[in-house]
């Protein structure tokens, strides 16, 4: 549906987007996720037509749209600040794009009715944007864009101005609307939870490049770079040395007294020195030594209560520090407290080899 071919965008000496290739399938919910200033918004603005790439080309439904102005592209955007026209009513805001297409009056009325029902705005048609709540403005902005039936809907951090509860409700609603209409969504956010909740695929953007493009689960469980591992969820990033292979597993040394087995990754590093990522919740803690591979002893240095879970800082005898997360399951479960010794167990497939990100 949307294809970016080696897109580069420079603003003066600053390279905002660097040689990005991206193929977005029809009906897909793709999220561009990254910290502020990483180039994700610039990418979006090039698809909508507000920026022209310095190099490369953009194709929409196999048509080269690189140099088409925004008003000639069948793409609509939901703006971060909503950008509702303050002088027009809700109905006139939503019908704006349809009137620009010079559609017949009865069709405009029909589509207006359908979309106000879809986003639950019925009854608000004659209100002005200033009379609406944040969530309602958000719905108007969404309705105004989808009523045009774009091939691709672009969303630029549309939920960032809402409070946490409303944001969660809108996430589900956006997902529902996307499934109902089958429109391709390209969603920009810096919020990893939002990305994980909503997306079919996530493109993690850092310093103008896509570091990893994969499903939410793959991004989380198998981050390819230190940046991805760190940006999405929490990760223990540990330097390690490769020792050799045993029964299809790789033996690595993390510290003088700590050697672990891990699954061999398809992207084997050429050097012996490498970086590993272990998610905190993948470290299983037990009071008694379990009979399994990859077991080592550590001391609980610090304990932070996080509601549903405890965050623990562990230290091994050789001084290696790890973060682990322990669910506060029930009173019957044995709890681990500060200053106690615990046995840590990590499954070989939960240790992930990561590349140092593009620095």
């Amino acid at each position, binding site marked *: 549906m949307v294809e970016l071919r080696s897109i580069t965008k420079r603003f003066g000496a600053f390279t905002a987007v660097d040689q990005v290739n991206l193929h977005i399938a029809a009906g897909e919910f793709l999220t561009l996720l990254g910290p502020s200033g990483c180039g994700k918004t610039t990418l979006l603005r090039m698809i909508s037509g507000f920026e022209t790439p310095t190099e490369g080309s953009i194709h929409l439904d196999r048509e080269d749209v690189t140099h088409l102005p925004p008003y000639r592209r069948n793409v609509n955007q939901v703006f971060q600040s909503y950008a509702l026209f*303050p002088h027009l009513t809700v109905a006139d805001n939503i019908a704006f794009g349809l009137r620009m297409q010079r559609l017949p009056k009865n069709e405009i009325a029909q589509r207006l009715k359908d979309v106000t029902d879809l986003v639950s705005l019925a009854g608000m048609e004659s209100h002005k944007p200033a009379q609406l709540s944040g969530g309602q403005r958000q719905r108007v902005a969404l309705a105004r864009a989808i009523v045009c039936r774009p091939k691709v809907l672009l969303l630029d951090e549309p939920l960032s101005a809402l409070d946490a509860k409303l944001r969660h409700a809108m996430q589900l609603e956006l997902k529902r609307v996307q499934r109902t209409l089958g429109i391709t969504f390209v969603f920009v956010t810096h919020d990893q939870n939002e990305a994980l909740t909503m997306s079919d695929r996530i493109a993690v953007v850092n310093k103008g490049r896509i570091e990893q493009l994969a499903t939410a689960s793959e991004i989380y469980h198998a981050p390819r770079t230190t940046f991805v591992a760190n940006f999405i969820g929490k990760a223990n990033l540990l330097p390690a040395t490769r020792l050799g292979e045993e029964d299809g597993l790789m033996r690595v040394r993390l510290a003088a007294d700590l050697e672990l087995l891990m699954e061999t990754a398809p992207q084997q590093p050429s050097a012996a020195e490498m970086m590993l990522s272990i998610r905190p919740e993948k470290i299983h803690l037990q009071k008694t030594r379990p009979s399994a591979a990859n077991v080592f002893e550590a001391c609980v240095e610090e304990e932070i209560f996080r509601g549903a879970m405890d965050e623990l800082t562990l230290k091994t005898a050789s001084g290696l520090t790890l973060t682990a997360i322990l669910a506060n399951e029930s009173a019957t479960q044995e709890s681990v407290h500060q200053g106690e010794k615990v046995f840590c167990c990590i499954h070989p497939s939960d240790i992930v080899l990561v590349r140092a990100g593009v620095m």
Partner: protein
Amino acid sequence: MQTAIGSGELPVGQRRPGFLGWLLIAPMLLWLLLFVVAPAAILLVYSFCQRDELGQVIYDFSLENYRRIFFDSETGKFGTSYITVFIRSVIYAGLTTAICAVAGYPVAWFIGRAPERWRNRLLMLVMVPFWTSFLVRTYAWMTILANEGLLNAFLQYTRIISEPFDMLYTPGAIVLGLTYAYLPFFILPVYGSVEKLEPSLVEAALDLGAGPLRAFQRVILPLTYPGVVAGVLLVFVPAIGMFAIAQLMGGGVDPTIGEVIQNQFLAARDWPFGAALGMTLVVLFTAAFWIASGRRAAT
């Protein structure tokens, strides 16, 4: 967006001023009373009076002055000489306003959309002419437009024309002079509106399929309308009464209402008639704006 939260209080903008509020606007009210209301009242009274041979005002109520505006004083028939002056002045001021709008809006847009650090410098350039007296600037225009002036000399030197071309002392010169004098008064309020216009609103219009022209018509113009209205008022109202430019650059052949009023007060020493002309202008303005604003409110 200021809205009242909770409690039954009126929103900030609608609250009645308390004692402190009145105290704060007292100097302004006093100013208006002394320099607007009082002179207007004096003029209103004068306009119904007569004068003696020496130009002294005789307090003797009569509608004679108003009659003189519309009827010939000798024949007593309906006369158009002053009405022509009114119409001519409205045309000059209207043309001036139209040219200021067409020339000033793009300038205001350009400055308002310029990078922030440039805006103040560009605004300075707009205001540079104010650093010299406008009389001096008008005389400068006269030296440019005169038959032996710079422009004619240049055109003759380059052999584009062989004879001097009459530019000074024409209606065109008056409109040029007025436009030159009042252009900044159009640019500044429009700039204020343009600067406040959210750039993403323009992008949203383009994104929804509006080409540049329709984006201007449907979104940009309606949202900068208050600035345009202010600009139109700031140009049209003073331009219609301006007499110095019309006198200097028009040569006094076809006088404007400003010139006629000035003549009544200074040369003819007929203050009551000048006052009647002035009051007529005020009434016409008030009626025009009242109709215009009423129609806008109705749509």
